[in-house]
C-alpha cells in the first residue's frame, strides 16, 4: 500500500476527483459534525430557504457526536457514527453543495449514485477508534443547535485524521467491492 494521500479540507470536487475507493488518506482542515437530529434541522432550513445554512456549501460533514472535552483536548473521544442513518438526506445535501462526508458503514444505492452524479466523496474512518481519532482534532467550536448536546453542529479542525476513501467521485463503493475481493483472493 502506498503512503496515505494528504487531503486539505474544505476541498473542491475537482481536487478529490483523483481519489479512488480503497485509498488511505489523512484529512486536515475543517469539518462540521452532523448526525441524526442535526440533519433534521439542516434539511428543514434547506427546504425553507433553498440553500445550506451556516455557509456549509463546499464543506465536509463528519457524522459524529463527540464526548465532552477531556485530557486537555477539545473533545475526549470522537469517531464516526453509522452513515446509513443519514442516507435519507444525503443526495439533497450533496446537490446543495456538500463536497464530502466522513462516517462508517455501507450506504444506500441512491447515495452511491448521488456521489457519481455530484462528484462528492465519502470517507470512512474506523469505528471504535475514537480515543485515537480525538488526538487528530485540534479544535471544536459549536456553530449551531447547542440545545442538541452531542448532536450540535460543531466546526472541527482536523490534523492528519486517518480515513479511507469508501465511495469515490465515480461512485465506486469500497464496502461492496472489498469483501468480494478478499474472498476471491482466498480461492
Amino acid at each position, binding site marked *: 500500500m502506498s503512503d496515505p494521500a494528504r487531503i486539505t479540507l474544505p476541498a473542491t470536487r475537482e481536487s478529490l476527483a483523483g481519489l479512488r475507493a480503497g485509498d488511505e488518506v489523512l484529512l486536515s482542515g475543517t469539518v462540521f459534525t452532523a448526525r441524526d437530529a442535526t440533519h433534521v434541522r439542516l434539511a428543514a432550513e434547506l427546504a425553507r430557504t433553498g440553500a445550506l445554512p451556516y455557509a456549509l456549501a463546499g464543506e465536509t460533514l463528519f457524522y459524529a457526536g463527540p464526548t465532552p472535552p477531556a485530557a486537555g483536548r477539545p473533545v*475526549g473521544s470522537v469517531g464516526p457514527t453509522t452513515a446509513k442513518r443519514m442516507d435519507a438526506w444525503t443526495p439533497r445535501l450533496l446537490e446543495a453543495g456538500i463536497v464530502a462526508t466522513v462516517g462508517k458503514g455501507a450506504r444506500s444505492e441512491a447515495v452511491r449514485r448521488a456521489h457519481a452524479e455530484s462528484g462528492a466523496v465519502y470517507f470512512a474512518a474506523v*469505528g*471504535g477508534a*475514537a*480515543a485515537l481519532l480525538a488526538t487528530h482534532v485540534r479544535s471544536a467550536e459549536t456553530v449551531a443547535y447547542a440545545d442538541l448536546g452531542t448532536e450540535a453542529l460543531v466546526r472541527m479542525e482536523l490534523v492528519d485524521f486517518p480515513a479511507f476513501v469508501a465511495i469515490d467521485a465515480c461512485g465506486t463503493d469500497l464496502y461492496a467491492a*472489498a469483501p468480494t475481493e478478499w474472498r476471491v483472493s482466498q480461492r
Partner: protein
Amino acid sequence: MPDARSIADAVKRAVAEAAVTLRPDVEAALRDAIESEPSERARHVLSQLLENARIAARDAVPLCQDTGTVWVWVELGADERLPAGLQAAVDGAVATAYSENALRMSVVRDALFDRTNTGDNTPTFLDVTQRPGTGATVHVMLKGAGSDNASALVMLDPSAGEDGVIDAVVRAVEAKATGACPPLIVGVGVGGTFDTVAKLAKKALLAPLSVANADSRVAAFEQRLLEAVNATGIGPAGLGGRTTALGVRVLTGPAHIAALPVAVNLGCCAMRSATVEVLG
C-alpha cells in the same frame, strides 16, 4: 445482604472502568487477529484499534464516543431479598458516572414521540434474576447503537436445526455488519421465547473470548459459526479481510416443542462490559 447502595456503587465503578478500558480478552483477540490477517488494509485498521485502547487507558478517555445505553443485570443470591429502591439507586449511579467521567449522554425520552435527550443517560435498562447462594453478581454493559442496530431476531422452524441457525447468523452479519464496528463479537441466543431469546444473545456477549465453552457441543458450534462469519470477507471496519469477528458466543435454553427462536446481538470491537461481585 447487598443493598441498593452497594449495588449502585458497584455500577458506578464498573461504568467508569468499562468506558475507558478495553476488555483484556478483546485486546488479546485483536493482537492474535493482526498476526493471522493477510489483508494489509485490515492490519492497518486492527493496529488503529490497539493504539486506540492504549490512548484510552493512558488518558482515561472513552474507547468510543458512543458510550452507549447502560444495561445492568443483577443476579441476586436466592438467599437475598430484592433491595428496595434498586432502579432509582442504579439510575443515580449511572447519572453520576456519566457526568463525572465526561461520558456522552445518548438516551432520548421516547423512541417515537419525544426524542429529547434525557441529559443524564438514564433510565438504566435493569434486569434482576436469581442465582443460587448469597450476595449479588452485577453485570454492566455499555452498548453502542451501531452494533445494537445491526442485531436481529428470527423464529425458525425446529427442522432448521444447526444449519438454520448458522444461516440466520450469517445473514444478520452480512446485512448490517459494516455499521457495527467490526471485528465483532457475535452474541447468539437460541431458545426461550420471542422476548427472552434476545436477552440470551445479549448475555452471551458477557462470556470471555479467552475461555472456551465447557460444553464441547457449544464450543464446536461456536467455532463453526466463527468460520462461517469470517468467510464473508467483510473484515475489520467492513473494509475487507479475514477478521469479521473476533469470536462468537452462544447461549442456548429450553423452548416450546414448536419453536427454535434465534437472536443475534452484535458486539463491536470496543465491547464494553464488566462483572462485579457484591458480597452478601
